[in-house]
């Protein structure tokens, strides 16, 4: 279906496209799930809307309520769009070292931004949001890191879509942040096809940034379930950028930087399958497009320079 009653109804049902040039062989194929084709351009539209609808169902959210959320950007942008259409206020707690575009988009949608310090990354944003929740008991914190509706959005949406489009799927690779995508998709796929391998790609930041995205510094999202994972990769900025550019260069896909990290892991998985002489269909997530990262210089100049510019930023 391509006609929808409103933007919110256009969520999900994203295309899965093959990568004929980057796939290592005819037997080992890579597939990209284009989650940038969601209402605000990222995979986060799925959990954001699911969390809002769950809170509406249990009565926590009512017309005029204010939503509070720690976010490094995409979830905030998704919530801001939905909040605007549904008549809620939104306060986002965001690390100050995220890209300028994310801040501008949030402001355009009318969200209020509270900045948390760069050092400490998303951990700090979560801590600050929890403080704000205590001092503003009438605000509703949806809390993507621990809200089951986040993983459910992928269990009921992303996972079934993947298997329907690619019944021969052998591997799923996604980014590890809130862990919602991997846990939700992983549970669904393991139930349907127990042999499917669920692989996490987590960003490895410079020493300045310790984000909870690499489950560092004692913070493990409440949603995290290590039993769902069959493998985990840690990918630095240089490799993430290199793969992001390869994806554009070879397949024409203009993706955000976190997608490069995910592709790096997907290609490692694919090469292993080739080495073992196995057949594989490796699907991975393109979480968003590159627009929001143009100001970081990720797409121009030498890789070394671009990686250096990203040092100290939350790039995924």
């Amino acid at each position: 279906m391509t006609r929808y009653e409103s933007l919110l109804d256009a969520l999900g049902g994203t295309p899965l496209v093959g990568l004929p040039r980057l796939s290592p062989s005819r037997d080992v194929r890579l597939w990209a799930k284009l989650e940038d084709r969601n209402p605000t351009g990222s995979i986060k539209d799925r959990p954001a809307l699911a969390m809002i609808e769950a809170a509406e169902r249990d009565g926590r959210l009512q017309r005029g309520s204010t939503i509070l959320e720690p976010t490094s950007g995409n979830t905030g942008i998704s919530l801001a769009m939905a909040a605007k259409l549904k008549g809620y206020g939104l306060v986002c707690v965001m690390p100050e070292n995220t890209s300028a575009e994310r801040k501008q988009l949030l402001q355009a949608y009318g969200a209020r931004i509270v900045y948390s310090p760069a050092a400490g990354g998303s951990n700090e944003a979560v801590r600050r949001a929890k403080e704000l929740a205590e001092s503003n008991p009438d605000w509703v914190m949806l809390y993507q890191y621990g809200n089951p509706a986040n993983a459910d959005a992928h269990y009921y949406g992303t996972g079934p879509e993947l298997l329907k489009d690619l019944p021969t799927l052998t591997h799923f690779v996604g980014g590890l942040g809130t862990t919602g995508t991997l846990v939700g998709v992983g549970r669904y796929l393991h139930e349907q096809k127990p042999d499917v391998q669920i692989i996490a790609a987590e960003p490895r930041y410079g020493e300045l940034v310790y984000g909870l995205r690499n489950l560092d510094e004692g913070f493990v999202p409440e949603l995290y379930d290590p039993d769902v994972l069959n493998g985990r990769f840690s990918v630095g900025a240089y490799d993430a950028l290199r793969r992001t550019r390869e994806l554009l260069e070879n397949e024409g896909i203009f993706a955000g930087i976190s997608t490069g990290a995910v592709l790096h892991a997907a290609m490692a998985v694919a090469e292993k399958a080739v080495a073992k002489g196995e057949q594989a269909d490796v699907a991975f997530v393109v979480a968003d497009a590159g627009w929001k990262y143009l100001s970081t210089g990720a797409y121009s100049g030498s890789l070394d320079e671009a990686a250096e510019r990203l040092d100290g930023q939350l790039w995924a």
Partner: protein
Amino acid sequence: MAVNVSIPTILRTHTGGEKSVEASGKTVLEVIDDIEAKHGGLKDRLVKDEKLHRFVNVYVNDEDVRFAGGLDAEVKDGDTVTILPAVAGGAR
């Protein structure tokens, strides 16, 4: 069997301040033993009860060894081994 091992800041006191060291071995454990022979003290921080310490993550070519055999994970010539602190989340 030479591999490059990258050492996190908090463990560099055990490598004379070096960010990365060369080592050899066919498994992660052999690589750690080899570094230990040259720079005493590192193994204690990484290995506990013959298992990888809960708060340490080790990656071979970016892949978490906890999913690939732990200390027995294979290492090949030219591989990159990365050691990172993980206060939590590393433990399965």
